[in-house]
């Protein structure tokens, strides 16, 4: 439907900017003061998962700061799933709305980013022009410019870090006889055999559940390097055979004997809270500590990372191609990268999401912001994240999901 998108708002200054930006994006972004000037008075609709009251509260704080510092109004559009924002932008493109979209910023990474890039739904490059971007020190931290092996190419700006972290109830019967929780996939299987019904993972295609598959695959297969290429370039069956063999053995010892799986990652926490599980995992390292604070988990909960390291990734903020408030969205992305905002985000009292800045490179005063007391016993040990496994190519996620559903999806 290639037709000009007619709208009364065509007169607004914001839209004029939007229309002119894609063509002449670079020069305007490089003049950061001009971007901030444009941003003044704009309302940025920031679509971000709204399932966590602490994240929501942090975003609220960001909105207050943006208003105060830059005269930008930030509206948090609370999503139940980032993909619904992707749907929205797609629907707008389908309808020919190329300049006055309803979304200005999206919290995103991985498959959703790959899909939006593939279908040209994102604005950019902009990230590397943000003044605070250099603080991430991308030369030494390639993960801030790579999203599930895909080069970001300035189409999203890093925001925070997640890493698979296991947690267990140290008082639970399953841990009465052994001192240490399972540190490898094989130990996990042994543990599950001894204590049947006390561990599970979210149902595929849930994001956290799919990550568990990838984590297991990386540890079990001896063809790791294949995972970092598109799946079409390798023999999927051969690479994944050890995984299915493992899962066939594991499932009978899972919660509900593997006949049903919890709907989502957060649901694992609820099951821990109900005493149905003794061992679970989360993408957020501080998840268990926060849950103890909020009365959801017993104080006897402890967190740890598997011996060989666990999958970690960076999550980002992107701007849809048809956002009418790109200047405001960039001002937001830049503020999110500021030491003040990153330190606040990392604090357990706010969110507990790890920073993407290279803290060693910050000034002493800035570094001080990040030095908080982390004596909560439910937090993972400080050196837990020394070994972070990189995310495989996004095509593996889809292929693993399909294969899992084929094998276990209809029992």
């Amino acid at each position, binding site marked *: *439907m290639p037709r000009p*998108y007619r*709208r009364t708002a065509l007169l607004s200054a914001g839209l004029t900017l939007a229309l002119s930006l894609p063509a002449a994006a670079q020069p305007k972004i490089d003049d950061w003061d001009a971007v901030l000037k444009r941003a003044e008075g704009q309302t940025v*609709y920031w*679509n971000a*998962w*709204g*399932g*966590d*009251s602490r994240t929501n509260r942090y975003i609220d704080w960001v909105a207050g700061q943006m208003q105060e510092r830059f005269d930008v109004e930030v509206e948090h*559009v*609370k999503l*139940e*799933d980032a*993909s*619904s*924002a992707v*749907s*929205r932008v*797609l*629907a707008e493109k*389908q*309808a*020919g*709305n190329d300049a006055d979209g*309803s*979304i200005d910023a999206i919290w995103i990474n991985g*498959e959703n980013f*790959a*899909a939006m890039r593939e*279908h040209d739904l994102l604005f950019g490059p902009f990230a590397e022009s943000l003044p605070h971007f250099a603080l991430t020190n991308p030369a030494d931290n390639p993960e801030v410019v790579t999203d599930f092996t895909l080069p970001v190419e300035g189409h999203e700006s890093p925001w925070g870090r997640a890493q698979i972290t296991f947690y267990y109830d140290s008082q639970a*019967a399953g841990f009465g006889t052994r001192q240490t929780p399972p540190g490898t996939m094989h130990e996990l299987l042994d543990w599950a055999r001894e204590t049947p019904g006390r561990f599970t993972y979210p*149902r595929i*295609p849930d994001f956290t559940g799919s990550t568990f598959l990838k984590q297991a695959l990386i540890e079990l297969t001896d063809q790791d390097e294949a995972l970092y290429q598109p799946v079409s370039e390798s023999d999927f069956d051969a690479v994944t055979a050890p995984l299915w063999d493992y899962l066939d053995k594991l499932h009978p010892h899972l*919660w*509900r004997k593997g*006949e*049903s*799986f919890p*709907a*989502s*990652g*957060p649901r694992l*926490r609820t099951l821990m*809270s*109900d*005493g*149905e599980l003794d061992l679970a995992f989360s993408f957020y390292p501080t998840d268990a500590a926060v849950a103890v604070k*909020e*009365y*959801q*988990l*017993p104080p006897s909960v402890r967190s740890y990372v598997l011996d060989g390291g666990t999958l970690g990734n960076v999550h980002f903020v992107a701007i849809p191609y048809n956002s009418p408030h790109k200047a405001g969205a960039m001002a937001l992305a830049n503020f999110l990268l500021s030491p003040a905002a990153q330190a606040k985000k990392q604090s357990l009292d706010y969110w507990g999401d790890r920073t993407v800045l290279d803290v060693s490179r910050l000034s002493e005063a800035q570094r001080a912001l990040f030095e908080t007391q982390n004596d909560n016993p439910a937090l993972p040990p400080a050196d837990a994240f020394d070994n972070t496994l990189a995310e495989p190519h996004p095509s593996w996620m*889809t292929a693993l999901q399909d294969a899992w*559903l*084929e094998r*276990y*999806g*209809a*029992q």
Partner: protein
Amino acid sequence: MLRLAPLLVIALLTLPVAAGLAMIALPAFGYLPVLGGDTFSLAPWQELFAQPGLWRSAALSLASGLITPAVALVAVVLFLAAAQNGRLARGVRRLISPLLAIPHAALGFGLAFLIAPSGLAMRAASPWLTGAERPPDALIVNDPLGLSLMAGLILKEIPFLLLMSLAALNQLRPEKHVEIARSLGYAPTTGWLKTVLPGLYPLIRLPLYAVIAYASANVDMALILGPSLPPPLAVSILEWFNDPDLNRRFMASAAAMMQLGVTLTALGLWWLGERLTAYTLRPWLSAGGRQRGERVLTLTGRTLLTGAGLVALAALAGLVIFSVAGFWRFPDALPQGFTLDHWQRFTPMLGEALGSTATIGLVATLVATLLVLAVLENEHRRHIRPARALWLLYLPLIVPQIAFLFGLVVAAESAGIAPQMGLVIAGHLLFVLPYVYLSLAEAYRRLDPRWLEIARSLGVTRNAAFWRVRLPLLAAPLLTAFAVGLAISIGQYLPTRLLGAGRVETVTTEAVALASGGNRRLISVWALVQALLPLAGFMLAATLPTLFTAPRHRPRCAKSTPQKDATLA
């Protein structure tokens, strides 16, 4: 003006559904240029049929679409037959009616927590009775046959059917029928079933069809209580539409068409079942059996509904406890401590959400009520029978939301209508209007016309008669219809979320977003707030009529006034 009302209403309801369906039908056959689909093909269908567990998903949806309404109907009918107007009837009615106000998801969460192996019921009985120190590893919630899902739906549909039946019964004068039957020696319950039910069923058939459509295509409850390997069809569709792999849209669209087929099949099978039942029960009706099975029928009627009401209340009690719970370890019957943290944490966010929820609900329901009144008054003035085309009013209830809302977003965007409050209200109207019509039409048509004739003979104009005679006489059903409309509007998630592009925040969108985080304490707080709003509406509906019909207006002949029973009082 009035003449145009039916046309306007039908256009208002059918055009968006048709536009939405068209936008889904095209990609279902491979046409979606924005994703590179330039030609028509059957590939989406081939991909769909290759999905593991697809037929099982469809069968689950179909089964839930038939079993849920059947059980709910039996429970309601037997209850009405057994309890009639006794004290039990009034008590249970009071107990059950507020349940109508509780959103599906809220009741789903409550029920899941009640019956789970680590849930409220098990905690109350452990360890003193069961000996369990830790929850047994039993698959109760999300069971593969969908039994817990159907139980949840039945709990939620019983109050709706009960309310609809009570409104219809008002017009049937069941006491007279039963009186005659009893004088001929029939036992009360049997007599009611043989004389009142045949008249009642046609009046509640449309609400039943709405229940069938809902039960075969719902997402809210299925996500919480339904099976997962594979899930019911509607849940799979939502997953495919939300798949990061955008090429899944083609298959998702085909699946949405298939969902429509499943719902229509459920409706068709039900219709066949109606015929069959009528045919097989005819001998029983006229055979003259007067007492046989009376005790069993009466007992079942009383226990089924009372039991359902108590289960639902227990589920709600669980939500209340959780909303103030500190840490709560199994098998403690109560939390170790209580805290208001959860309530305090969300109060700052509450204001805006409550404001827009109320605005949308009130405006949508008001517009819907005015339109429905216009349609009905037009019928009355022109002495016409209800137009056959009015069936189309139920289109938005019968076509699964999931099948046309995604398409409707594209249609609205193409028409250049920006997502905003107005669009959300229009979207809500699609679902509110049919329910308002459902709740009001029978009472309106059956109001004794002599009241208006008397008014006219006293020289009152038609319009004045409408405002000063008809509306006051219909105050009770009007307010009930209004409360139903409000409850429907408040419960809407997908239309609010999709048509408002997330910019319009209501209590329900907040609740669903938070629910994805799995914090049961916060979910409980939101679910309760979500339930309290429509509940307030129902309480108002129950008390206001007594104010409206002040002594001066109260007609002397009680027979033709809408009785208080219809008001949930």
